[in-house]
């Protein structure tokens, strides 16, 4: 579903990604872990077609980036630590707007469906600026799945959430965003990543340093694996 070969990303003289190889099979949930500045967000922004690769091959859902970026975007949903929502519009107006940008047929039905999925149907007429951070993040998931994408990218979705809101988001991520989809998530929350993901890739110094499947971590936990990967 996602194929990346020898990806290089430079900002001026600074090289962030140094020949990164990465692939994700359909239905996999990959947690992309690594220290600050490792290039996780840069990598996700390239997959999301928000940033151009300097060198290398990037394919998402069978389409090349950047040449077929519009085709990729139609199959992609992105949730980041920012909600990407308009505070002066209501919840339903936000979803409706993004639905129009994706050319969704039967839009009103889909708006209701999405709001019900993320548990905000009873607040559909409320302005987003009156929502708590947790509610905004749930609505952000609704925004990201409005076009029923095949691939989901989560960039630090738990940032700024308290424990209760994080647990609620866990549930929505599992039941709405990740269900039946291919997912790549960056996070510093190892416990949550261990709980959600089927594979863990450690990004360090611009390349994938190590990779392990969930079942391979039987005798160790993710924290130990993470530390060992960075020490290597």
């Amino acid at each position: 579903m996602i194929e990346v070969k020898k990806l290089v990303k430079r900002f001026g003289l600074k090289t962030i990604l140094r020949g990164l190889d990465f692939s994700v099979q359909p239905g996999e949930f990959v947690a992309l872990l690594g220290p600050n500045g490792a290039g996780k967000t840069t990598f996700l922004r390239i997959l999301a077609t928000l940033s151009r690769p300097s060198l290398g091959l990037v394919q998402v859902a069978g389409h090349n980036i950047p040449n077929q970026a519009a085709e990729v975007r139609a199959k992609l949903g992105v949730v980041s630590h920012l909600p990407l929502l308009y505070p002066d519009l209501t919840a339903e107006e936000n979803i409706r707007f993004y639905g129009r940008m994706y050319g969704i047929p039967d839009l009103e039905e889909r708006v209701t469906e999405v709001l019900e999925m993320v548990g905000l149907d009873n607040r559909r007429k409320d302005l987003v600026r009156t929502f708590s951070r947790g509610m905004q993040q749930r609505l952000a998931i609704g925004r990201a799945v409005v076009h029923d994408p095949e691939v989901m990218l989560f960039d630090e979705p738990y940032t700024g959430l308290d424990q209760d809101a994080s647990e609620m988001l866990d549930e929505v991520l599992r039941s709405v965003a990740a269900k039946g989809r291919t997912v790549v998530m960056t996070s510093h929350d190892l416990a949550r990543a261990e709980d959600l993901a089927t594979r863990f890739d450690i990004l360090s110094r611009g390349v994938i340093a190590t990779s392990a499947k969930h079942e391979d971590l039987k005798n160790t936990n993710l924290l130990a694996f993470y530390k060992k990967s960075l020490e290597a």
Partner: protein
Amino acid sequence: MKTASPSFFKATMAIVQKDLSAELRSRELLSAMLVFSMLVILIFNFALELDPDVREKVTAGVLWTTFAFAGTLGLNRSMAVEKDRGCMDGLLLAPVDRSAIFFGKAISNLAFMLIVEAIVIPLYGLLYNETRIFQPGFLGVILLGSIGYIAVGTLLSAMSVQTRTRDVLLPILLFPVAVPVLLASVKASGGLLAGAEFAEILTPLNLLIVYDVVFIAISFMVFDFVVEE
């Protein structure tokens, strides 16, 4: 779910409708532009001691200076709304030609600018007993000048909003580039107010139309590169 890529026109209109709905509710942008415009006109009145003779000569300049400054405020605010909560990324993630985003933002910015002008021009006429500004030719020049200013302003605000010094950077970038539009607008509208023949204002009018077309074409071509990292 089967989704069809929205047409260029539908995506553009979705952005316009979204901007107008949000502004109708918050009125942050329009109120700032309006208050600023009125203050500028009052300051000019005191600074230039606008007696009837002086007023005849400077009306076009005063109005265009006011619109240019107020327009910068609106352009900055309009793009900051997209940037501050990551909404620009939300727009860029949509499977549409990115120039649809430019046209959507430019049309809503133009609408805000025209609303401000529609309030400021009668107010100017009322305050300074100036009735010549209501002639259709003058209003046509205002429209042409606003289109060119907003076209280049929307493009440059998309660039400046990505920097930390966006409030300062936009006017620094915009005013030198917009000088041809502003000069042609002042010349054409000044000529109309002075009762010049149509042939006399044809040159600035033609320049204005050419600048509008050129700025819109350039913005259409380069917007994708401006907003992408």
